[in-house]
C-alpha cells in the first residue's frame, strides 16, 4: 500500500493505492491521526482491496473525527469496493455518526 499526502485549501488529502488489510492498516491509521487539519479526505481511487480491518479502522477514525467536530471524507471508492462496503452498512453508519458520533 502506498499513501500520498497532499494539502489543499487547509484540507489534507490522503491518496491510498494498493491493498489495505490487516498487515498495513496501522500505517494508514497513524497517517490519519497525525493530520491536524479540520478536514481530511481519504481518496481510495487507487485501492484494489480492503479487508474488514481496513473498514473497521476507517469507521473508527470517522467516529473520532466527528466527535471532535472535524470531518473525515472517504471519496472515489472503486465500484467493487463500494458494493462490499454497502453490504456491511458502511454508508449508513457514516450517516448516523455525522449526527451522533456516540451512536
Amino acid at each position: 500500500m502506498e499513501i500520498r499526502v497532499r494539502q489543499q485549501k487547509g484540507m489534507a488529502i490522503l491518496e491510498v493505492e494498493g491493498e489495505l488489510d490487516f498487515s498495513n492498516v496501522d500505517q494508514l491509521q497513524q497517517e490519519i491521526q497525525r493530520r491536524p487539519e479540520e478536514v481530511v479526505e481519504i481518496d481510495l481511487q487507487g485501492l484494489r482491496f480492503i479487508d474488514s480491518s481496513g473498514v473497521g479502522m476507517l469507521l473508527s477514525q470517522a467516529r473520532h473525527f466527528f466527535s471532535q467536530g472535524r470531518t473525515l471524507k472517504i471519496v472515489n471508492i472503486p465500484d467493487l469496493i463500494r458494493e462490499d462496503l454497502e453490504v456491511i452498512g458502511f454508508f449508513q453508519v457514516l450517516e448516523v455518526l455525522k449526527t451522533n458520533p456516540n451512536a
Partner: protein
Amino acid sequence: MIEVITGNEKILSAYRLEGSGCSLPAGQVGGDFFEFISCDKRTVFAVIGDVMGKGFHAARLMETIRHMLRECIRVNPHPLEVVRRLNKVGGYELRKCGAFATLCLLCYDGITGRLSCVNAGHHPPILLSDGEVKVVRCRGVALGLLEDYLGSGVEEFSLAAGDAVVLYTDGLVEACGPGEQRYGQERLREIVRLQYGAGADRMKKNILSDLETFTRGFPQKDDVTLVVMKVTGKAGERVGD
C-alpha cells in the same frame, strides 16, 4: 435434530430440513463461523458470520459471539430480537476491541415452512426455488458498528419441498484465481441455479468444486464459509426430531 460434525464440516438433519456447511480458513485460524441451532421441536436457526480480523484474536471474538448468540436465542427466539440483543451485548465486546462482525440469521419453522431472515451487514442468502434463484433483499448494519441495530427488519419466505437456501461469507465471492477477477455473485448464482434437485451436501460440494476450478489452487486472502439448507418434505407433515 441430528447434527454430524466432522472437522470443519457439519451436516444437519431435522424438521424436514437437511443442512450442510463448512468453513475453510485462509492459511490460519479465521473469524468465519456458522451454526445450526435447535430452538424447540419445530424451529431451527442457521447462522453464518464473519468477525473482523485474522488469527487468534478474531477466533476468540468469534467464540464469544457464538456463545452470546445461543444465549440470545434462549432469552427471546424472535429473529429480530436475537439480532438486536446480540448487537447490544456482543457489539459491546466487539467495540472494546475496535472490531465488528457480520451475521445473517435464518429461522426455519418446520410446521409452517416459513423461513425468516435478519441480516447484520452480511451478504444476503440466495434462495433456489423451482430452478430459479432469488437473492434475499434484507439488509442491516454489521454488529458492533452502532449501539442499536439498524436494518430493514425481518424478511419472510414460504419454502416448499425441494427449495434450498445458500449462505456464504465474502471470502467465497471475493476469491480470486491467478488473474485479478473475482469469483463473484453472478457465477455463484449460476452454479446455485444448476444445483436444483441436488441434496444439501451435494450442492455444497459442487459449489466448492466450482470455486476450486475458478481459483485453480491460488492461495486466498480470506476464509471461505458455505452453508446450504434444503427442505426435504412438505409443510404440515408430522415433524420428527
